[in-house]
Structures are given as C-alpha cells and as structure tokens.
C-alpha cells in the first residue's frame, strides 16, 4: 500500500517536472523528437 502510494506520488512529481521541462524545450525550440 505504502509502496503503491509512493510510486503514484513519484510519477506525479516526474510528470510535473516534465511539464516544466517541456515548456522550456518548446520555448527554446530544442529538439525533443528526432
């Protein structure tokens, strides 16, 4: 139960950090794909 909650919380943090990185990638026109 604790491990499952930890995994979900960790994924939530990863997704939100990725959203910030995605914004910077888009604004700097950095290639994120191919």
């Amino acid at each position, binding site marked *: 139960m*604790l*491990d*499952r*909650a*930890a*995994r*979900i*919380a*960790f*994924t*939530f*943090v*990863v*997704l*939100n*950090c*990725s*959203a*910030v*990185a*995605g*914004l910077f*990638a*888009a*604004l700097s026109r*950095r290639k*994120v*794909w*191919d």
Partner: protein
Amino acid sequence: MRAIFWLSALFVGYVYVGYPALLAVWARVGARRAKGSAGRMDPDRSAERFARRGAPGVTIIVAARNEARRIGARLHNLLALDYPADRRQIIVVSDGSTDDTATAAAAIDGPIDVISIPASGKAAALNAGVAHAEHEILVFADARQTFAPDALRELVAPFVDPEVGAVSGELLLDSEVDRRQSRGDRRLARVESRESTVRSRQSSVERRISGIRPPIASGIGVYWRLEKWLRRQESAIASTLGATGAIYAMRRSLWRPLPADTILDDVLAPMRAVLAGRRVVFSDRAKAFDHAARSAQAESRRKVRTLAGNIQLLWLEPRLLVPFVNPVWLQFCSHKLGRLAVPYALVAIMASSMALAGQHPFYAIVLAGQCVFYLLAGYGAWLEQRSAVRLRPAAPLRPVPAERSWRAAERPRKGVVNA
C-alpha cells in the same frame, strides 16, 4: 498571499478533481439527451451499420526509422487483422533508415507498399504515406505496438456516422493487461493470448525486458487509466482532444499535410478535424498493446516531448485558443492547458503555505501534508532506483540510439499519457 494559496489550490483541484467530475456529469446528461434524438451513435449500432454497408477501404500507414528488428512482426500482425484483404492497403514509410527497415518490410509476403524517403522526421513520413494512400480512411500505426485481431474493424466502425472525422483506439499497457486479466476480463485475456503469438516473434532479450515491471510502470498505469477515462467522457460529450498515436484513424478528406517539425501528429491532425466541425471519438473496442516505460527517465523524456508538443500546438493552431472557433475549448483549456500550468500552481501552494503556516494551523497542516507527499515521492524515487539496479539485465543490451530511431525501447511514445 492567501489569495495566491487559494487560487492555486482551487486551480489544481479543478484540474484533477473538478474537471473530471464536471465531465462525468456532463457525459451522463449528454447521454440522456442523446437517447431521445439521433445524436450519438452507440458502438453496437455503429458495428451493425458497418456490417450492413460493408468494410470501407482502409490505408494503414506505418512510419518507421531503423525498425528492421520489429517491422516484420508488425507487418505480420497487420496482415493477420480481421479485415477484408481487398479493402486494405498497408504502406511502410522508411524515413532515412540506415538499417534494413525497407528491405525487411519489402520481404514480407503481402500487399505492402514500401516508400523510402530521406530522413525528414515523422510528420514528413506521414505526409509521404498519405500521398500514396488509395483509400478514404487512413489508419496510423507505429512499428512497436501490436493491434488486437479485431482492432481495425472496431476502429473503422464509428465512421458510419458522418459527423465522425477521426477515431482514436485504446492503447493498453502491459501492466493494465495483467490487471484486467487478474480481474477476470475474459475477452481481453483471449485477445491478449492471440496477440502474444505475435509477440513470440520478438527476440528472447526483448521478451526478457518486457517482463520487467519497474515501479514507474505502475504509477504510469494509474495516470494512463485516468487519462483514458477523461478521453472516454470527452468523446461521449463531443470530441476527445487528439488521439492515441499508436492507433488512430481519420478521414482522408480531413487530412492536411503536417508541418515538418510537428511533434504531436496524433493531436494536431485530429484537432484540425475538430476545428473543421467533425468529432473525434474514442473507441475502447479498438485495442493496441504496448509496454509501459522502463524507467522514470524514459517516461520523463516521453512527457517532455508530449508537453512540448502541446505547447507547439498553440502556435501551429492558435485557433484552438478561441472559444467560439474551437468547439471543445473548455475541454482543451481544462485538460491540455491545465496540466501544463499545474506545476507552477504546486510551487505557489508550497510557497504560500510556508508563508502562511505561522498565521493559522490550517496552513501548517497543509504544509505538513505537502511535505509528507513529497517525502513519499522521494521514497518512490528510491524504489525506482533500487529496481533499476536490481533489474539491470546481465547481458549488455545495445538498443538503437535514440537519435537514430523513433521507437527504440526507452524512447518517447507519442500520444501516450497525453497531458
């Protein structure tokens, strides 16, 4: 400071709780209204009308770069689909492959057109594939995933409704398949069993990797299920916001060539259909199978790409931001843009609750709750790291470098867990 706290908290609450609740009510009310009218067609009626009219012509386009290892199994999977062979065209576009992708595809016995173009990116590959398409319905697929045997039939069935411009299928991650099988979903178990015969063509190393279930996979499974639930509700109300890149179809008449640097073809093309006044529906009967990300890094790369793609959409199609032009404006802002803004709201909640903690016990409790949550996330990170060390394969693997392949094992999958 209180205003910042409450506005940020309300915003995060709306994105993750309020908006789903709104969709649930809206979809239920909408479905009740549609019952009395000719409105939304239910899947059974679509399938029935589809069977009466006969199968429409379908062109399946698989864009691939350096997929020689997978393309054979993928094409066998497509050729084995339950669909009239004379109503189906398969096109493989090899985009600047430096391996034997084109040769491997051409070697498969069946009606397969292989096109080789210089490395120009996926959007250009899709444009090239569509230019060679002979049929009215275009189906887009990737080299890595596999379709359920009836996926094509189910994907095409909703097009009997002339309002429908595009259809997104359902991508099932391996963790979900396990979960559904353990819950006794017999139909899915049968489909997965047949699909596994295709997977058996994979190399033993790949199978061994597929068996790994890192912690991030179960976390992603939860978010992916939420995402698909949202898509289902949005589809019932009007349109989903884009499609699942691994399995989607659209009318050729609605296709417009994609700009070469398009990141999310599976959102841009369907949203253009929405802007043209058609619906994009989600069919959970059309299933494709894939595995979840192998690591947090892989998932993060995938998300960076997806979210950068969502931002790119705004300058490729600024009409999406105009309420009376975009028929799903509220959904677009709540679902797509809301997710982009949540991290900043979370930072604002943390900062404001720290500032307010000394003023009222409520803010101190909220601050403590956030600390517990982030500690829990830290524990999740530790579990992830531990599993990465423990599950590292003994034999050195040599995956295709990310810059050389669209679909190497650790790389982003478009349209998945779209935020």
